[in-house]
């Protein structure tokens, strides 16, 4: 997202309240634990006792909802590399600035805005460490 796009978004929020449909935490959990869809557990671990083989390339997702606001989580997932260019966490909402993307994934974000809202809603429920 460009900074002017961010500003417009912020303004829209002030005037009209959230432009996002409320996310669904149960759907968000399914996305987070799906290794073809959310891919999160390839890098992160978290409070998912039924999920074997969680990655250790990133901080645990446990307590994410206590540490971060919805807006911060949304920003992180949508454009992690906008926050930190060196991040290995993919920018889930990005379609630009990528190279050699396989045809099946070209010009598509990894997750749609609605799916990102579901993930945010789920992460907000992770309030214990």
């Amino acid at each position: 997202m460009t900074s002017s796009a961010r500003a417009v978004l912020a303004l829209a929020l002030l005037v009209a309240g959230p432009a996002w449909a409320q996310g669904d935490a149960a759907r968000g959990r399914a996305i987070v634990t799906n290794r073809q869809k959310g891919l999160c557990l390839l890098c992160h671990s978290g409070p998912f006792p039924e999920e074997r083989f969680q990655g250790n390339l990133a901080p645990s997702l446990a307590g994410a909802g206590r540490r971060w606001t919805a807006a911060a989580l949304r920003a992180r997932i949508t454009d992690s590399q906008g926050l930190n260019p060196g991040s290995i966490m993919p920018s889930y909402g990005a379609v630009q600035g990528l190279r050699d993307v396989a045809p099946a994934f070209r010009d598509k974000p990894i997750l749609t805005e609605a799916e990102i809202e579901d993930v945010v809603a789920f992460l907000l429920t992770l309030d214990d460490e």
Partner: protein
Amino acid sequence: MRWLLLLLGMAAAQPRSGTQDMSRELQAMQADDSANPGMLWMQEGEALFQRREGLAGKACADCHASLAGVAARYPAWDPATAAPIDLAGRIQQCRAERQQAAPLPRESEPLLALTVFVARQSRGMALAPPADPRLAPARARGEALFRQRRGQLNLSCAQCHEERAGLRLGSALIPEGHANGYPQYRLEWQALGSLQRRLRNCMVGVRATAPAYGAAEYLELELFLAQRGAGLPVEAPAVRP
């Protein structure tokens, strides 16, 4: 004292073979010829090596006795095409020009079998990439490819294999990503496969386009990988999970 520090420094820079990161069971399977599934291809390769083929009516064995040490110094410079060539490519070339036989496509069973038969003769020898300056530009392009983020997941080879080797990506332990065990038997493939097949897997994994087998990009990456793994023992046919 200085030599000791030097020695220690060298020890720290030693590349680590993927074999060292495997379970003891898989290490044992790789080391034991009667358990290593790659040996089936080896035997087929040995038979093909002896067989007369093509219009020239010649077998590989008519021109070559031992090929020990060859795999350790490939990819090499090919003056005929003025380009780098890897071991499979050289075998394809001998087959076409010296035997005048029908081409063996990349990743075909007979080419894998012949390649592993030749590669195994270098087993235990240190990877010794040639210092030929004509290889330098392609090797440098290989290094650039290694460091280039790509695909929908926007990751580079270096971000996994240099910066995060030893950590876990889901269930997989990330190896340093060396090229010393190819062709190799991979349980996931249920088959022997080439280094290029492995590179395609990593590219597809980050949701990037994977060039066709034999493409210049692979040769460039292979050259860089050989350099970065210099000194590691040839372990073909390695076994991987």
